[in-house]
């Protein structure tokens, strides 16, 4: 199955690193989309349906937690899984992100193995 994945980060380098890590995790045939903040991500989601959103937290325009909340409010995006990747170390904020409906929170720096493990859990058994 070809997964459709949206990577959201204001750093172009981070987006590329995440994409390369996903390829290493076995998602080389996925269809990738990118956005540099939450507002741009919502615009992409209107045009291109995806299975998985991987988003940073601290971004200009619209941060990742607001993007997550907006995704959860939209019936058409209810099935979209969201993974948050961030340097955020505050436990309460991490819990709040999970409460908002994130499927996982991954702290930077991450390893390909961490990403692979989370992806396998979230996208199994279709990987």
């Amino acid at each position, binding site marked *: 199955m070809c997964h459709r994945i949206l990577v959201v980060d204001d*750093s172009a*380098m981070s987006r590329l690193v995440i994409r390369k890590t996903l390829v290493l995790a076995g998602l080389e045939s996925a269809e990738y989309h990118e956005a540099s903040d939450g507002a741009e991500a919502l615009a992409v989601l209107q045009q291109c349906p995806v299975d998985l959103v991987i988003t940073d937290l*601290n971004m200009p325009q619209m941060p990742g937690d607001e993007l997550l909340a907006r995704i959860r409010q939209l019936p058409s995006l209810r099935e979209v899984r969201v993974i948050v990747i961030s*340097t955020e*170390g505050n*436990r*309460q904020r991490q819990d709040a992100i999970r409460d908002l409906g994130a499927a996982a929170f991954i702290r930077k*720096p991450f390893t390909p193995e961490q990403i692979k493990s989370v992806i396998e859990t979230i996208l199994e058994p279709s990987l």
Partner: protein
Amino acid sequence: MNDSRLETLSRLEALSQVAQDILRATAFAFGDPCPPAELPECGPAAIKARLRFQGHVSGELILAMPPDLCASLAADILTEDAAELGVEQTHDAIKELLNVIAGNWLTAVYGELPAFALSTPLADTVEAAEWSRLCSHDESVGVVIDDRPLLVALCRS
């Protein structure tokens, strides 16, 4: 040694360790800690990224290094050839490295309970005089990577 001095040393030791750990984890770069005043020559110009943190304590973190070291780290992070990277990617790399160092350093020093807001990192050039100032700053730490200098400076508000 008074408590305040011990706290400062502890903060700086954590900053040095976190910086080394992040460089190793993200760019496979193995650095050696070095007093800033004893760092190798930087060259005519360096680049820096700066970021503000606000919360339980507030201040600014600055990461500075020569452009060739930054290009080399960016290439290692992206697993691409350093010669093919542009200025934008090099600046992106130093900003992202600082972002990750800042988030992990704040947790290492202050724990997981205080909340901090981090600003978007900004990249800029560093002239020789500013590099000297950063080296002599009381709360700077140095790391040597392949005979090239890297500085992290903490400026508390």
